[in-house]
């Protein structure tokens, strides 16, 4: 596989997220710490879910292919639930951190708001999730080989890159929604996040029928984006104004 495939897939998968990072996160030390801690929390959730899956696999018959696939599906769903549980734990931690920052600041307000933390935490989760899905693939893309030579899909790298991108974005928006739900005690927002996460992961069970996985995921991503934008205080009028280049001082942009 060529260097072009490597660079193309890297830019597709991580380009937008790294752009977001560069512009909004990397210049602010506190946000970088929250990003890395978010990545850490996602990693811990993955570890625990892998442990559960590993135990289940070791306890079962390795020759039974449908059973193994079933266990894998169970592993995926359990991992999704655990990720959301850790997102909730991270929310609790960040809440405590905000109280600490407020107590230690001069003017009684925290240098970072919970909405900004939600955005950065979601981005951290997304980046780590995307990295773990994509990095080994990218490393293999640099080596020799032919994609799909045994009859599998030839679009493997490309679709993986697109899926990774959508997952990173989804995690970011889920972070905003989830934290907003926790803040305003709207349990249905949190339930919606968990449900859509399960739907997106479930849709990947259709792979390699990429129509079944990519299209729903992208549609859901746009829906989450719009919801997160509205929750962060944006409205369509401001969006149009911004697109036309006019100033609008009332609505903050999500994540700023």
């Amino acid at each position, binding site marked *: 596989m060529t260097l072009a495939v490597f660079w193309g897939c890297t830019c597709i998968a991580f380009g937008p997220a790294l752009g977001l990072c560069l512009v909004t996160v990397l210049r602010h030390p506190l946000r970088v*710490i929250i990003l890395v801690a978010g990545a850490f929390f996602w990693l811990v959730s*993955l570890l625990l*879910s892998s442990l559960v899956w*590993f135990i289940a696999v070791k306890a079962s018959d390795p020759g039974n292919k449908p059973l193994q696939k079933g266990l*894998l599906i169970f592993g995926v769903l359990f991992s999704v639930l655990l990720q959301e549980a850790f997102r909730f734990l991270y929310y609790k931690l960040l809440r405590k951190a905000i109280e600490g920052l407020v107590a230690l600041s001069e003017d009684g307000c925290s240098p970072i708001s919970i909405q900004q933390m939600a955005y950065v935490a979601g981005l951290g989760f997304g980046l780590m999730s995307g990295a773990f899905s994509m990095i080994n693939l990218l490393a293999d893309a640099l080596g020799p080989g032919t994609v799909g030579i045994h009859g599998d899909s030839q679009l493997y790298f490309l679709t993986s890159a697109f899926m990774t991108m959508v997952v990173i974005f989804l995690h970011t928006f889920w972070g905003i929604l989830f934290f907003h739900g926790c803040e305003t005690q709207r349990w249905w927002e949190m339930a919606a996040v968990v449900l859509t996460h399960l739907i997106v992961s479930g849709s990947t069970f259709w792979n*390699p029928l990429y129509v079944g996985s990519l299209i729903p995921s992208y549609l859901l991503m746009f829906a989450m984006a719009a919801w997160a934008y509205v929750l962060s205080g944006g409205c369509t009028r401001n969006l149009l104004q911004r697109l036309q280049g006019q100033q609008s001082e009332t609505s903050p942009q999500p994540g700023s």
Partner: protein
Amino acid sequence: MTEKSEESVPLLSLQQESVAYVLFNVNQNDNSERRRHDNCERRRNDNPESETNGQPQNSTQQVVEQEEEDEELTLKYGAKHVIMLFVPVTLCMVVVVATIKSVSFYTRKDGQLIYTPFTEDTETVGQRALNSILNATIMISVIIVMTILLVVLYKYRCYKVIHGWLIISSLLLLFFFSFIYLGEVFKTYNVAMDYITLALMIWNFGVVGMICIHWKGPLRLQQAYLIMISALMALVFIKYLPEWTAWLILAVISVYDLVAVLCPKGPLRMLVETAQERNETLFPALVYSSTMIWLVNMAEEDPEAQRKAPKSSAYDKQAAENQTQNEDADTDDGGFNQEWEQQRDNRIGPLDSTPESRAVVQALPSNSQDSEDPEERGVKLGLGDFIFYSVLVGKASATASGDWNTTLACFVAILIGLCLTLLLLAIFKKALPALPISITFGLVFYFATDNLVQPFMDQLAFHQFYI
């Protein structure tokens, strides 16, 4: 040089660095204590935060008004300085991982150090385990002996011996190990090179490195050199330590770090306390410093010295001022000669700088100075920490079946460990070791990711499932 001396050299520098990794916390401790003393306006001639580039300098005094502001400074100090440490640690790890992945020399087995004489190519697993335990024991006991030797030398003021030791080890690192490194990189990329050009490059690299590290130089250059020598050292360890031995050594050395720094009779703690008693800095060339500081002059010294402008971002001017302040405060005018003073008097009228007027000026809210001071206070981390973090991540990238996932997991784990260490430091305000938390997290994540996560991710990638 022979293989044997090459093998024996790393440990010399390791010794110094294993001591140095506590400096960060000591300096923090001094720093926060100094801020507290500032509140009581007691002068304390303390050095660690005022040292730059290896030159011990006079104390700096900051006017810090209230305890709340002090605590706010502590936290503000926290986030920015965590990043100031994230960046060099990340750079060091990136250099090590990039080298491991591209230059095969550092993953090839070419023998072992004399400190790890037992081989791991044994028939049974039990024998291998036993050999690695013995190797780790020998290595750690050598380290303990060397540390105690260092403490004894320091206690009995044999500074020349210590400085000679440091200079020899940095000479070897900067010239010999970088020569080997460069040679291997050229071999990997098939670059034709003649000896004359090579000699010129190594000579320049080495001499500039010695000057930057042991004497004076631009801060960024000094930081870059410290990162490079830590990476070189880590690469040597990754090459010459067999697998199980390496993991065991990492585990044991973080326990040793914990014990040596926190126990009352621990050698590192004694070293640190002796340095504090004598109001000296510890081994300046072995600590990564994230920033230079500048001096703010305070009352009680002669008026000439006090009319010096406090803003001096050029290191040399600062050092010159400081040294002259040390030596001969009476006749030194810090560059403000009579002519300049006359001009100034002509322009703005004669100044009568009394202690009261100075106190009033200093009491004025000075946002730039206050906000710059905590940043300028900087943060330090011992090179031993850099080395062991990089050894962990490098070993993970060299030997893991999970490859990049494992490397990434260890990297994040180490960064979070560093963050937690800094947080604990801000809370407890006493000397803390920088290794244990990061290395523990790193080891846990290495083994967990390699054995548990990797099969899971493999299966997921095979079916193209996403979690």
